[in-house]
């Protein structure tokens, strides 16, 4: 197992998280999420140590879906919707970045309290996973456009995928593929809805989706 390389990539994932929270352009955000997907696709090969059919397929499917297909769909939604390319955050970019950094610290503290199996010691998987999930949450809650919320969800799923790496040997293939497939269909449905939101409301701003409340 190539742990030092894996840890290096995980640190890259953490940096991408901060970049996602700090960028002001939607296109750059999609790019960062796609890059994160590609990095995650390589991870199974590094963790598993050797290449067999199972891990190879998972890696390939991840790179193609998370790195190419889904970002492509998001870019298309962005183009068709013809929205302003700037992100409109509810709280400023710098405060969210600071929150993201804080979330990373908390993740490291929280992860140290959970005992790991001997073969997973010295891996950054658990803190990286928590931190990415929290980053996804932050994007979901502080960005006001439907498309940025969808990207937030993508980042959140990336975080869960990182944790799945710990279970690569134990989890059956079907479940892993199920995860990717659901993600794919989820984003597919979401992009259709985004299209409809745009047509009906002439904006992707979810603040306009505010007629339903108490």
């Amino acid at each position: 197992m190539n742990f030092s390389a894996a840890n290096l990539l995980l640190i890259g994932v953490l940096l991408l998280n901060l970049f996602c929270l700090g960028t002001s352009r939607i296109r750059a955000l999609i790019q960062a999420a796609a890059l994160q997907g590609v990095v995650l696709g390589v991870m199974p090969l590094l963790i598993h140590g050797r290449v067999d059919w199972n891990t190879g397929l998972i890696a390939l499917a991840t790179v193609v879906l998370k790195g190419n297909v889904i970002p492509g769909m998001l870019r298309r939604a962005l183009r068709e919707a013809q929205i302003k390319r700037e992100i409109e955050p509810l709280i400023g970019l710098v405060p969210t970045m600071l929150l993201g950094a804080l979330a990373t610290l908390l993740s490291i503290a929280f992860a140290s309290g959970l005992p790991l199996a001997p073969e997973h010691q010295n891996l950054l998987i658990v803190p990286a996973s928590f931190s990415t999930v929290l980053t996804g949450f932050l994007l979901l809650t502080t960005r006001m456009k439907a498309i940025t919320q969808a990207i937030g969800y993508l980042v959140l799923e990336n975080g869960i995928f990182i944790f799945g790496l710990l279970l690569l040997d134990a989890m059956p293939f079907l479940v892993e593929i199920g995860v990717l497939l659901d993600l794919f269909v989820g984003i597919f449905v979401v992009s259709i809805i985004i299209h409809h939101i745009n047509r009906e409301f002439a904006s992707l701003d979810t603040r306009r989706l505010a007629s339903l409340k108490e």
Partner: protein
Amino acid sequence: MLLLALIALPVLAAGVAMALPSDEWRPYVLPGAAAGHLALTVAAIVAPSEAALQGWLALDPLGRLVLLLLSVLFAICAIYAVGYLRYRRELSNRIFIPCLLVFLAMTSLVACSQHLGLLWVGVEATTLTTAPLIYFNRTQRSIEATWKYLLVGSVGIAIALLGSFFLAYASLGQDSSLLFQDLLKRANQMNRSWLHVAFVLLLVGYGTKMGLAPMHTWKPDAYGEAPGIVGALLAGGLTNCAFLAVLRVFQVCQAAGEGAYASRLLVFFGLFSIGVAAVFMVGQRDFKRMLAYSSVEHMGILVLGVGLGGIGILGALLHMLNNGLTKGVLFLSAANIHRAYGSKSIDQVAGAMRRVPLSGSLFLLGFFAITGSPPFGPFVSEFLILSRAFAADRFVVGAGVLVLLLVVFVGMGRTVLTMVQGQPSSEAGRTQYRDGLLTGMPIAVSMGFVLLLGLHLPSPLESLLRDAAAFLEAAR
């Protein structure tokens, strides 16, 4: 084979419905598929069938109960749908009907699933198939509701996946099977810290799908904007699938000797949900949103009953059936009233008893049933749960629930009585809709079941319930 057929039949029917070119004839696929599904369900419950797909699919006592409720409720809604869709000719039902059928297939999959991962895939699939159903009316408000439903639901389901991973990691050892029976066997060797976090994540994740407070925010919007038939299927069917998932995880916790920890959390979420629902139900002017909060309340009662243990578990399982069928009555009759007035605000709706006598009286009866008035089913199950609270010396919990139930009764009662009593005001919108056989009879049948469950529990059903409760308790 039987179990595979239960899932394959609705999927096939969905294909047929897609292929049919006529909006007029397509709805008839629904009762056909529902009848077939009901027959298969009865066969699967009566004759214990073999597990399929290496044990991934099997009907255990809990699954039987959920499957029976789903199949009956879907049959009621399927007949109603034929009548309902006649009034909605302006909208194509080419997506709506196949989605309803796939929903039936996926909820059946959840009921039969014995595998932690497969269970999750099933619940996620139900989220995706219900999104187009909520969006059926194609209005701005329904887009908003669908967007919130998808976003909150997907995040919930993502948390449930993370929780499933945690549970898998907690049980990591020589044996890596994620079948529930194997998880139960290995439970006492599980790592406690991972198991604790896993239970919280799974409860929050599947609790989002159930609509437990404070993860219930999608519910009033989705139930308020979706057609009544979708509300009935979500509140009476889908939420119980998520409840089943919570029960399965609870069972694993209990087997690991962490039952007390899990029960505390369940009681907390139960009380909190009932409380939040009571607050928002008082003075609610939109009667469909009121029903959504009623669903939050009853999900709270379900987890509360399980958390209290003992006879409370039996009460919760019985309440699952009672609540499911009563929610069918309430949502479908509310949909009829909505259609007769063209409004779902009590500012416009009055005198429903005069304008749509059947739907109006069924709605009133449904209200009495859901608030726990005798002689209806929910009275019996709520009584069981409350008696457990007092028997276990949890007076504060018991008294708190009683007070909250009273608040709900008064709050809901004011809204319901304003709707059904009096004269329809002259400016209240007049629509073409009047009670018909197809949109009235299924609701009356469902109400009949609710009454029957309160007066006399048929012995086969009673043994089904006792088996399920014993099955949950056995893990202790």
